[in-house]
């Protein structure tokens, strides 16, 4: 039986805990009990990046800690108090050079202002019972829902795509937070085709059903509530997976609004608009 993303992620995480566990996957032929994982990873950029990152983390930890003579070397080292005064004083005495404005995106993923939000929304506390779902279940939504069935084979075999590393890192951060949430993105016909997972600090959007757009088009993510729109960002492609990741930042209130929707549209390329002009291709109610 073919392995899905959630199982693969879980298995990789388990193997990473075992001494030389990850190395078993490099054996040729692969051990029979790991064959399904190896097969899956071979054709899946996300899980391939997951595995490569796990390898890299293991290697880095071995390099950094293997010859550590004393655990005290890992005690936190804080800067001396006087340094703060010195640095702030030096800045105070030095005028800031006028320069160009901070590059687009520096203030967050959106380049357009988010319209004012209803003031009645209190940011709800995401309670454990509401979101007490296990890692596998969440991954099943966040990854299986987002990536299942995708033609993810990349010429040259699996490798460590930096963009996938970043996506996996963001997913890790989201899933490591106990109060994270995830909803399925669906096509207008109601087919599950992707996912939005978010924590109090990050959002990760994954979709496998989208074809790469032509050069004059782009998939854009939006938040919609009460007929109002906030542009979130343009999706990127890796393999057959469309994704967007970024900080929750200014959308924290909206992401906590159960009546809001997360929407993906196919838009003309160019600067983002205040509201979508193209067709909705995916959507999810944040309270779903």
């Amino acid at each position, binding site marked *: 039986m073919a392995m899905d993303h959630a199982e693969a992620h879980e298995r990789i995480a388990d193997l990473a805990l075992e001494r030389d566990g990850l190395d078993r996957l490099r054996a040729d032929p692969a051990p029979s009990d790991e064959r399904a994982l190896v097969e899956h990873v071979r054709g899946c950029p996300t899980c391939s990046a997951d595995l490569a990152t796990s390898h890299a*983390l293991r290697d880095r930890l071995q390099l950094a*800690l293997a010859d550590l003579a004393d655990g005290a070397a890992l005690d936190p080292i804080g800067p*001396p108090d006087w340094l703060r005064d010195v*640095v702030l004083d030096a800045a105070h005495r030095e005028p800031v050079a006028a320069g160009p404005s901070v590059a687009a995106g520096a203030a967050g993923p959106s380049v357009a202002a988010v319209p004012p939000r209803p003031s009645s929304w209190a940011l709800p506390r995401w309670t454990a019972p509401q979101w007490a779902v296990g890692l596998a279940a969440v991954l099943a939504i966040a990854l299986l829902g987002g990536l299942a069935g995708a033609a993810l084979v990349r010429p040259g075999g699996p490798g460590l795509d930096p963009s996938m*590393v970043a996506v996996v890192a963001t997913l890790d951060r989201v899933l490591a937070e106990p109060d994270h949430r995830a909803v399925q993105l669906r096509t207008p016909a109601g087919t599950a085709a992707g996912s939005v997972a978010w924590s109090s600090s990050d959002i990760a959007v994954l979709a496998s059903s989208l074809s790469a757009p032509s050069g004059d088009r782009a998939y854009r993510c939006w938040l919609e509530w009460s007929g109002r729109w906030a542009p979130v960002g343009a999706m990127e492609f890796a393999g057959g997976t469309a994704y967007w990741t970024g*900080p929750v930042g200014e959308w924290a209130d909206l992401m906590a609004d159960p009546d809001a929707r997360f929407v993906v549209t196919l838009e003309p390329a160019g600067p983002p608009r205040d509201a979508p002009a193209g067709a909705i291709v995916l959507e999810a109610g944040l309270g779903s």
Partner: protein
Amino acid sequence: MTGTPAASDDGGLVQRIAMGDEAAFAAAYDRHSGQLFGSLVRFLGDREAAAEVVQDAFLALWRRASQFDATAGSLSAWLLAIARHRAIDRFRADARRAASRSIPLSALLPDERDEPGRAASEDLATARLLDTDPSVATAAAADPETVADRRWVQAGVRTIVSELPEAERSVVLLAYSSGLSQSEIADHLGAPIGTVKSRTRRAFARLRSGLADVPGLLEDA
């Protein structure tokens, strides 16, 4: 550890810094100086030198905040890149000085003209400087770039590990420094194996996130 919530609004902070907002600059210092200083002390082995580099990095931020591009990486990564550049310059200069001080030791070798022997003495001096074994110093003599890079990565990883919660740090340390398996760690700590595994997995998630935030720490492995 590298704060994700912090990273999420660093862009806004830098925008304010670019406009001369000293409060924003202080907030950026409070947010990022710990990781920067920890990495530099571990890399340079000298708190005063580390403090100087931290100061340089933050003043570079103050002067060049308008050039910061959040789409190209996090503020933490930007500061670390500046610090790394300056720290490696210092490291090389110190290594050269240490190597030049090794001449009297060369004289004790059988043949002063013997290049391997001279190299060995320099390695020994460099090893003292690096507080590491001579084999590493041999590599330093052969390829100082590689050794500096390796040492920088080591310092960065140790700093990020040091910022883990104590319970998670201890299982990582037992696994990678003491070489214990998960069940051996459970025995050592007197904790259920499930607890040890979940701690380790949480630690890995944090480490992956923290390391991925710093270019060169994870993706080039």
